[in-house]
């Protein structure tokens, strides 16, 4: 059976099958994929750090909470393409500077994460917080040793959502010349070349899968007391994502 399968496979590739395009241009696809992954990483990380600060603040001072969450909602609605185009003028960066895209993506990651983080910290049982106060934990220690670990699973779930949507959003940057998998989409469309587009979608999914696995492993590493990464239980957590 293996032999028959291999035979069929070699017939396919010896024909004028367009999947040979991938083999011929593997360097190009690999380079774009790596660049795409690199572009995705920073916004996820930065967005998480900033959201942690903001979300925790929102939870402590309820006055800020509505402001911060409202701010997140508005950021969420800014359309991506014009933001990519306008950002060089606002930031004063060069037009081709990749930091433009990273800043824009961080903003979108923030928009989703702020709400997730605020909810995550809000869901920490008050008993645990009271108990830690009673024992004598300082504010800082309480955050790192009580609230953060207990909020962990929800934070992780939010991170996984943001990871996927950031990776999906990076490709829009190709419209303004960013060298990522989006090039396969725009160039494929310009040349009427469907295979290029499909390969780009596949590579994009691959990056998302790898990032997701890494995040789950990270969760297991940092929160070994969770037998299994708890999947989303409250439906609200499933429902946030950012379109292009």
């Amino acid at each position, binding site marked *: 059976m293996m032999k028959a399968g291999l035979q069929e496979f070699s017939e396919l590739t010896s024909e004028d099958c367009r999947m040979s395009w991938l083999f011929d241009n593997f360097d190009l696809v690999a380079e774009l994929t790596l660049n795409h992954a690199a572009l995705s990483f920073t916004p996820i990380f930065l967005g998480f750090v900033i959201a942690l600060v903001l979300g925790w603040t929102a939870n402590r001072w309820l006055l800020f909470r509505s402001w911060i969450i409202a701010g997140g909602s508005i950021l969420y609605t800014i359309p991506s393409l014009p933001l990519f185009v306008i950002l060089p003028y606002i930031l004063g960066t060069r037009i081709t500077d990749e930091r433009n895209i990273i800043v824009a993506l961080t903003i979108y990651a923030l928009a989703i994460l702020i709400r997730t983080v605020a909810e995550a910290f809000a869901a920490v049982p008050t008993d645990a917080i009271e108990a830690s106060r009673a024992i004598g934990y300082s504010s800082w220690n309480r955050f790192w040793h009580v609230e953060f670990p207990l909020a962990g699973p929800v934070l992780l779930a939010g991170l996984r959502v943001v990871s996927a949507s950031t990776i999906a959003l990076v490709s829009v940057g190709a419209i303004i010349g960013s060298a990522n998998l989006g090039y396969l989409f725009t160039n494929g*469309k310009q040349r009427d070349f469907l295979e290029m587009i499909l390969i780009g979608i596949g590579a994009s999914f691959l990056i998302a899968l790898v990032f997701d696995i890494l995040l789950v492993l990270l969760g297991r590493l940092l929160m070994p007391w969770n037998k299994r990464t708890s999947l989303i239980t409250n439906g609200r957590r499933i*429902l946030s994502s950012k379109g292009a």
Partner: protein
Amino acid sequence: MQFFLDALRWLTDPANYVAGSVSPLPIQDRVAEHLWYTFVSVLIATLIALPLGLFIGHTGRGRQFVIGFTGAMRALPTLGLLMALFLIVGSTVPFTQAAFVASIIALVILAIPSILAGGYAGVESVDPQTVDSGRAIGMTEMQILLRIEIPLSLPLIIAGIRAATLQVIATTVIASYISLGGLGAIIASGIGLYDNERILGGAILVTVLALVVDGFLAILQRLTTIRGSSQALPKKQNVRRRSHGSTAVAVKAVDERKEYVQSKK
């Protein structure tokens, strides 16, 4: 800051609202188009995804599928989806319809996961005790779904539709790069003509549109939230709260059953 003021000036200039102007003006036509595309795609997506989500939530079957599916779909690059669909659709459908058909298919695909998740999560969130009481008084599965689960799930269902709508509004902007109309056409022409006013003006329009639609749906969500139910949690929440609201619905159902039984006598 000057950009912003220029853009606002462009937006309030009545010359940009004259009917019959050269595309992409007038502004109101593009706004109407944008709303229309959003409405059609979310409607189709709801018709497909909501029944499925409700079914999965009610029966509990396919739960893993929903979670995996929504997660995977979130990673779908929208630009790639749009381009691929336009090429596929474009080979069979004439030009004027091709952009519309391809875009609507892409938007529906993008909207489905959120609505599916909303339906499933909504039904899942109903207190099982309520469902059991329904069964105990002899309701059929369908009656439970219609009379208990759906009313109690409405806030989460609407939340799913909200998320989907936002995503669709945002993606429609990108679709203008395959010659679809809508507010993206204003932004695209701004990029092409190096007219920052247009780019920013278009971006402001989309943002405002999204906020308005989202706000409207948020009000709807709040209206359907029954006080005291598991959806209506106060700011600092302890997640395991008793759902009084679901008891209220169960009581109502019991009353109706009593009436029914009595009328039969």
